[in-house]
């Protein structure tokens, strides 16, 4: 019996040593990167500017070749995503929007960008990406992500963030019965108990701009914060302006938008991609084109029409 044990121990050590050799051998192999068809195309058509060719549909480095894979979080809330006629496709929560519908501000923007890149709506497929994963380090499951991602320099260090497709402010929503609802300046919010979702620029706005005396409440998601607002555990919730409009007019009874926060420059929403993605330049081109021809403004006016009407809270 002891002999068998000895043999077993020897075999285990040998196995580990073998694995070590195998790993160190594998580490010398180069990591695969996207094939460089762009350079090939450029050399074949030297009369056309290389950047245009690099963004031609057939030259794009995509996760699923031939299809544009777009990510967003689930549930996909209005007014960014509208429900689909005939019911939402799985896995999109049936109570909120469906990105496949093409309606709703961000759904429409995604399809407009896709069209600019040469993709038909049927070539676009959607995947669920939890909010914090969209700009976290590491490889991504999508070509680009659209999810009200506010541009922050820290986020840009671990993901590529495009130029803005929407510019807006953080806003405060409160129940009409709460004294905070009558606030007209940021200073009047200082004594309120505020709530926001963890990891968002809304939470940053509380910490950096409002600086309340009472510690803010932080929630896993906006719906938990909404519950807290309804039960009066918090005085007000901080969200971006389009979401504030949805909450005040649809989701929460007897609530109102107290105002939008003046933080200096308006926040910009960007599309997120893997760091140093080759698609970023092409997306920026597309966004630039859609801004110039007024498509983005038209979509914002159509789906987010309240921006100018909301009072601005200054310090």
């Amino acid at each position, binding site marked *: 019996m002891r002999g068998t044990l000895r043999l077993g121990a020897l075999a285990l050590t040998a196995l580990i040593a073998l694995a070590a050799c195998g790993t160190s051998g594998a580490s010398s192999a180069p990591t695969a990167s996207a094939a460089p068809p762009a350079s090939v195309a450029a050399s074949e058509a030297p009369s056309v500017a290389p950047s245009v060719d690099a963004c031609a549909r057939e030259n794009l480095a995509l996760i699923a070749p031939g299809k544009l894979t777009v990510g967003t979080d689930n549930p996909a809330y209005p007014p960014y995503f509208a429900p689909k006629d005939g019911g939402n496709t799985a896995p999109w929560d049936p109570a909120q929007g469906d990105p496949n519908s093409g309606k709703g501000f961000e759904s429409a923007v995604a399809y407009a960008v896709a069209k600019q890149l040469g993709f038909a709506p049927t070539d676009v497929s959607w995947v669920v990406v939890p909010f914090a994963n969209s700009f976290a380090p590491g490889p991504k499951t999508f070509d680009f992500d659209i999810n009200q991602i506010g541009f922050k320099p820290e986020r840009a260090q671990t993901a590529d963030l495009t130029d803005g497709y929407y510019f807006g402010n953080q806003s405060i929503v409160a129940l009409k019965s709460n004294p905070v609802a009558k606030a007209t300046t940021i200073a009047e919010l200082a004594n309120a108990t505020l709530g926001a979702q963890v990891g968002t620029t809304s939470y940053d706005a509380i910490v950096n701009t409002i600086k309340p005396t009472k510690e803010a409440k*932080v929630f896993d998601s906006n719906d938990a914060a909404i519950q807290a607002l309804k039960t009066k555990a918090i005085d007000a919730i901080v969200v971006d302006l389009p979401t504030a409009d949805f909450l005040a007019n649809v989701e929460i009874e007897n609530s109102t938008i107290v105002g939008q926060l003046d933080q200096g420059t308006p926040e910009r929403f960007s599309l997120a991609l893997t760091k140093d993605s080759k698609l970023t330049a092409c997306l920026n081109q597309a966004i630039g084109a859609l801004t110039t021809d007024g498509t983005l403004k038209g979509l914002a006016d159509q789906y987010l029409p309240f921006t100018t009407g909301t009072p601005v809270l200054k310090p």
Partner: protein
Amino acid sequence: MAGLASGPGDSGMLLGVAGQGSPDRRPDRGSGALRSTLIAFISTVVFFIVVGTLIVNAEGWPSVQRSFLDGRVFADSVPLIVTAFWVNVRLFVVAEVLILGFGLLIAVLRSLPGPVLFPVRLLTTVYVDVFRALPGILVIYVIGFGIPGLGFTGTGNEFIYAVLALTLIYSAYVSEVYRAGIDSVHPSQDAAARSLGLSRLQSLRHVVLPQAVRRVVPPLLNDFIGLQKDTVLVSYIGVVEIFRQSQIRQYGTFNFTPYVVTALVFLVFTIPLARLTDVLVARDRKRSAAAAR
């Protein structure tokens, strides 16, 4: 048998099988033990060197190291996280006191015999079954959003809701631990107490429970350590405690090192507590063993 513990070699094997006995075997037994300790030590060191080398030389190690063991993120996170831990400490200290009391009550109620007390036993059994089955997040949402939603209470009571949720959940588990302790005390103890004229409750209070509780201190400590982590429940209703603070830092830095800080905080807290409990239990055993003589 000492012979079995000695190192390999025919003579050792033979000796081991033969068993203890004649003086000429003792020197072998001594060197055999030393040899086996040396082999154990060397093989352990070699094992960890091999595993450590494998990990550190893996292709992705630098980025994993940066993600989990970033020095600057560590230093920046410590003050915030340690401050947030205070919320958890208050929660589990208050909750544990209530849990130990309420769990014991439930266990005693369940063990009372007689048809008259059947409703009591039924209620306590249902309570234990339900609260062991329900996920904690459901309980905290129902209590933390449901109770204030009814409109009776004011605001700012998240601490109370969390203590209530933790007490309800953990008393169910702890009552079963107590019940096991009570059952493990030999029935002759209770019989002897009753034959001396003590009532059922007096027998419980003076004879059975003191023995039962002492026996289940290790599993009770187990549940207490579990409770310390389950104080995360309060974060679901908005309060920033140690796990939420780690998460905020994680989202702020794109780094997992804050969770390593949290792990260290819990280790620093839990390990001395576990060793202290071991010392107390050992001391108590020695005392009761001495008394038995």
